[in-house]
């Protein structure tokens, strides 16, 4: 059965990622055809083609800054992984725990707190910084570049994910790894998107203020 309203996420993509002067007309046309009987699948296909068209357009008009944003964000992630701040934090955690609880195991609150810090460090921090920087560099299309970077991140994790799924068919032990890796990919992608959009929001806010002045 055809849903009553078109997919909201697809509409959001059309509204926020395209900078075409006919953006409103495109969205109006898609809504009109959906009301006339097109399916949600058709609507998604059209929204994704609009996204692809917007990427090509952004590369044509802001090619250098678009490419530079993707390259710098990738370098930031690479540098973060190389620098591995995790090892240092682990040492601090060990010292702190040793000084507070030299002869007993730390209480559960401490353990939860350090697990949260570890999770934030591994899955969020580097990705959030990379997403934030990508939006700052490509100011013409900040949301689009952040989505493209997040898309590349998801694509780059696919080979490992497929490998884990293949291994799972022979050995159930890989299920834990697959769950962890899927969660890691989801949270890190979310970190890129949230930090990037937060940065993009500031950029458009500043632009509006400058136009008003």
């Amino acid at each position, binding site marked *: 059965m055809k849903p009553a309203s078109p997919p909201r996420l697809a509409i959001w993509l059309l509204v926020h990622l*395209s900078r*075409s*002067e*006919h953006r*409103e*007309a*495109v*969205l*109006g*046309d*898609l*809504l*009109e*055809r959906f*009301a006339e009987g097109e399916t949600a699948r*058709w609507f998604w296909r*059209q929204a994704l*083609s*609009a996204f692809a*068209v*917007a990427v090509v*357009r952004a590369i044509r008009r802001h090619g250098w800054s678009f490419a530079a944003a993707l390259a710098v964000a990738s370098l930031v992630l690479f540098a973060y992984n190389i620098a591995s701040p995790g090892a240092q934090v682990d040492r601090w955690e060990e010292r702190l725990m040793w000084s507070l609880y030299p002869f007993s195991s730390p209480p559960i609150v401490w353990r939860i707190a350090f697990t949260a810090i570890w999770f934030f460090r591994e899955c969020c921090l580097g990705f959030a910084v990379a997403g934030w920087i990508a939006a700052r560099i490509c100011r013409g299309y900040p949301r689009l570049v952040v989505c493209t970077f997040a898309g590349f991140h998801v694509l780059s994790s696919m080979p490992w994910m497929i490998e884990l799924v293949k291994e799972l068919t022979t050995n159930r032990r890989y299920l834990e790894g697959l769950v962890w890796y899927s969660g890691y990919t989801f949270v890190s992608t979310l970190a890129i998107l949230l930090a990037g959009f937060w940065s993009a929001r500031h950029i458009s806010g500043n632009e509006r203020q400058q136009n008003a002045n």
Partner: protein
Amino acid sequence: MSKPGILGQSEFLVLLAVLRLGRDAYGVPISREIAAQIGRDPAVAGIYTTLERLVERGLVTAKTGEPTAVRGGRAKTYFKVTAKGLRELRASQSALQRFWSGIPQLEGGSS
């Protein structure tokens, strides 16, 4: 005045669809007209990219219409082929016809 070049395939399709539709040429009927001719549903955003290019080249003019409820309050954009657009279409058509003629494999309908 610069000599007009041969139009691209998407430009041909969009210009001819706009001409066929006359006063009712906006995104939805344009995409339907093209779908009827080529046999598959084109990407609406792709049609607008071509239209933007044609507007920039002065081959088509765009005019905003009234917003309607069925379009979620979004206005239609109507397009019209300019005199320059018509000239370029004719020039491209005759250039292609010249290029087309004199090829034995394409004449008479047999392979």
